[in-house]
């Protein structure tokens, strides 16, 4: 319970301490710490730090906390367990080290979870995103009956078979914090505690207004006509950039190829994905349309992935 007595005794981690600890842990295991990607995404996987970096042969380790927006999951701040925007701590280990499961369990220790006093199970849960042309094999990690992490061995991304594969560990920070602090509502999570006074700032104080206002927007106010307009504009521009990449002659130099703004094309694709989620939350996409729109976004994501992988190959060849 978040009571006053927690000032003297070393209580459970605050929300921000939880983040610090996990970042610290993964930094100490060779991860680059990145900031959250500043384009709306539905999951940490969609950040280019994951989606693009898992492509190609180059080893890569990164960790970042990604606010993940799912408009349809909003509950106007009324539901203690569901959010429009939750925070995923995303860790990518490419290639996955042999002891990746052991490292993960160590990370739980780092946030104060004594495994001798908790029941941990790795239960089958494979992940698939038709929109991203990506899938992987893995588990949901259950702690005393609570799903706290999604653990995935990426097999394919943007329609491209990965070699080497990447290990992806996604912590649901709100869930873990609520569990550690033993609160029944996410909004009661202690986000920060002033060191001098012990005064607490709760998750609700930081985020409740946002949950409420965005639920209103996502479900009631978002202008369907304009959303579709935005969608088409972003899609068109993304396609133009991709056409430019395709038009580049084979014999074009390394520099010309590395200048291709594929990272920008990917941002445009992410914009489309978010607009799709908004339209979906507005109930503006019929079932028949749905499949078609997903296919359009997937086409963009797959094309960006393909062009990006080719760009990396050229860059790697030049370095060699």
């Amino acid at each position, binding site marked *: 319970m978040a009571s006053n007595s927690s000032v003297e005794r070393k209580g459970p981690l605050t929300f921000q301490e939880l983040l610090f600890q996990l970042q610290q842990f993964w930094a100490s295991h060779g991860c680059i710490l990145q900031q959250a990607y500043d384009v709306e995404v539905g999951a940490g996987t969609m950040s280019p730090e994951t989606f693009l970096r898992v492509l190609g042969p180059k080893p890569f380790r990164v960790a970042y906390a990604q606010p993940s927006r799912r408009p349809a999951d909003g509950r106007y701040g009324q539901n203690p367990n569901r959010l429009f925007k939750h925070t995923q701590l995303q860790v990518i280990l490419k290639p*996955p080290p042999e002891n990746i499961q052991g490292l993960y*369990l160590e990370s739980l220790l780092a946030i104060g979870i004594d495994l001798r006093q908790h029941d*941990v*199970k790795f239960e089958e849960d494979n992940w698939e995103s038709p929109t991203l042309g990506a899938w992987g094999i893995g588990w949901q990690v259950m702690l*005393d009956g*609570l799903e706290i992490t999604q653990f995935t*061995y990426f097999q394919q991304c943007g329609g491209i078979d990965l*070699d080497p594969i990447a290990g992806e560990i996604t912590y649901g920070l709100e869930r873990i914090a609520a569990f550690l602090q033993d609160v029944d509502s996410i909004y009661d999570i202690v986000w920060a505690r002033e060191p001098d006074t012990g005064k607490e700032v709760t998750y609700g104080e930081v985020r409740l207004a946002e949950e409420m206002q965005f639920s209103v927007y996502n479900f009631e106010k978002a202008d369907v006509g304009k959303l579709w307009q935005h969608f088409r504009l972003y899609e068109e521009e993304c396609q133009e950039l991709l056409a430019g990449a395709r038009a580049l002659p084979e014999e074009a130099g390394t520099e010309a190829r590395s200048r291709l703004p594929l990272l920008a094309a990917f941002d445009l694709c992410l914009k489309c994905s978010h607009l799709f989620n908004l339209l979906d939350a507005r109930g503006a996409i019929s*079932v028949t349309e749905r499949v078609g729109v997903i296919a359009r976004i997937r086409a963009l994501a797959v094309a960006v992935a393909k062009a990006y992988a080719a760009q990396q190959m050229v860059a790697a060849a030049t370095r060699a």
Partner: protein
Amino acid sequence: MPAFLLEIGSEEIPAGMIAAAQTELAQRVEKLLTREWLATEALQVTSYSTPRRLAVLVEDLLPGQPDMQEEIVGPATKVAYKDGVPTPAAIAFAKKSGVEVSALKTIQNAKGEYVSATVHRRGRAAAEVLKDGLAAEIAGIYWPKSMYWRAGKPERFVRPVRWLVALLDQEILPLEFAGVTAGRASCGHRVLHGDVPVVVKTPQEYAQTLAAAYVEVDPAARRERIRKALDKATRQIAGARWREDEALVEIVTNLTEWPSVILGSFEREYLTLPDEILVTVMRGHQKYFALEDSEKKLLPNFLAVLNLEVDEAGAAVIRHGNERVLRARFNDARFFWDVDQKIPLVDRVEMLKSVTFQKDLGSYWDKTERNRAVARQIIDRFDPPLFDSEVKFNTFCAGVDQAALLAKADLTTEMVKEFTELQGVVGGLYARAQRLPDGVARAIHDHYKPASQEDTIPSLPAGSVVALADKISTIVDMFAIGLQPTGSKDPFALRRAGNGVVRILVEDDKLNDGLHLANVYLAAMQNTKAMEDADLRGAIYEFLLDRFEFYLREAAKVNPQVARAVRKAGTTGSDYEVDGRLIAYGKIAGFAKALDAQVGSPNVLAVAELLKRASNILRQAKEKEITYAQSPNEKYFQEDAEISLLEKVYKVDDGIHMMYADRKYSQVIDMIAELKEPLNQFFDSVMVMVEDTQLRDNRLALLARTVSVVRWAADFSELASIEKSVESF
């Protein structure tokens, strides 16, 4: 005799895949040993599994292959020698076989004279054979879904393989798979034992060594331990029982290496939610067992199976965590329930227009309309009708139509979106909450039934009719767009739907014996293009008959040939038209059981042989394109045997339908067996294929009549050779 152990250490294998893989690994190892001449009569194969390992222990294998002599046949003698001198062919053969040319012999076989060589093969040591052969067996294990994890993608497995133990007695067999070399170091329980390697000294000590590291490797022992722990935890509440759930016991057995059980509780207020929802939340997401009192009423408690052994303090922490999660889940469920009530089922029907059933078949709204029409068609085909009274009939029709209309509406609810396995059930519960008639609510609730072989059929006739309409129209419509099951692929679970149709027809005695399979299928054909397409119609009907045969074999445990013989009972043979004198499927199944009991009797076998002979003659006539009437004309009879056969056929035809209707199946069979004498006489004294075509055709017509009268009950010619197959069982 040596013993051998193989343990494959993996990251957590999906619970549902472990048992099959354990069995397969044991079979593969045993087959390898047999194939490689290393098996003995006394060979003992024991297998183990946990989420993190598959293991097989073999005792009493041979230490090595026996030395062997083998005779290899080479070229023909006339090719091998020219004028007594060995040709290059002979020299090459001798070289290939590793013998001197002078050691070649000549042998005589069916094809002529050949040269041969006697080759001595030195047996290889078991260690060598196993080391070379096992990697391929490990790689060959079937997984419904597998992955690659190493760079260059050299192999696939269900999850990354992290260690291997392979011992032949005390010796390590250093076999390699997935970049891992086998040793004697295993892993214990992740938490209770930690990272210290577990050293296995000998194969026989495997299970006990792992037990000391907090891993019970025998799933049967784990299952037993879990059941006892569930019992023990339940005893904390007087009079309580945990709700038996074999499938769930299996899942938790395969999720744990060192299981224990804790008892948790939840607030009594959640018990206002229906049992089905509470149990689904506990079972599906949390893998908890429900508790009930002596009257089978749910208690506000649950049992969680842990993969851990903890003291009281630890148990308290874990109990608290699990209770917290369950409370949140129940809150969600209650939230869904409340939100869903804001739109009554009847208003949700329109919303089904935006839920796709199948892209070429339209939405669930379309499916609903189709189900309503087919349900009505089914009711109209009852013979005799379900009700004598018009009032009762109209009430029934209205109830069925309302249930069919609302049956799919729960697909739009938050509750079903969250707990898809509760489709139908939620609709029924909501119908009741919305004060719809109880019969309608139950019909909605039951309309997916039976969902499996173990599941019950709908509890009321109205539910059965809606269930039949839903299943049969799905089958017919999927076939019509070419989506029938092929081989092992059945993505729309049409076989299960067909099994459901058959089971309802056989087992629902409240349907009043008025419904034949062909009528249900015709109900779904009405006004579809399938009606005009004879091939399609035939394919669907054969598919349904296959399901019926399957039911007779698997559920009624009837001999496969008997099942085959009654397959088309109540129809007029080769086409799918229904005989006027319907037989209900419950009766056909009853008859099949009686026939199964009597099929070995000499009279039945004799008449089966005779009827088969008759069928053969008719088939040959058909091949010669001879046409004849369906019934003989008595004025062309020449022999007494013809007259007495026809008289008996008339007697059988007059008698068996009534006996069948009265469920006197044994008498039906006895009566058919009475055909033995006149048939024997007929074949002894009458020549069928005579020159005189009028005479010939009349005799064919007599046989045809005989065969078809009997075939109404069963195609006895299918039983002709049954004795042999019974023996070989």
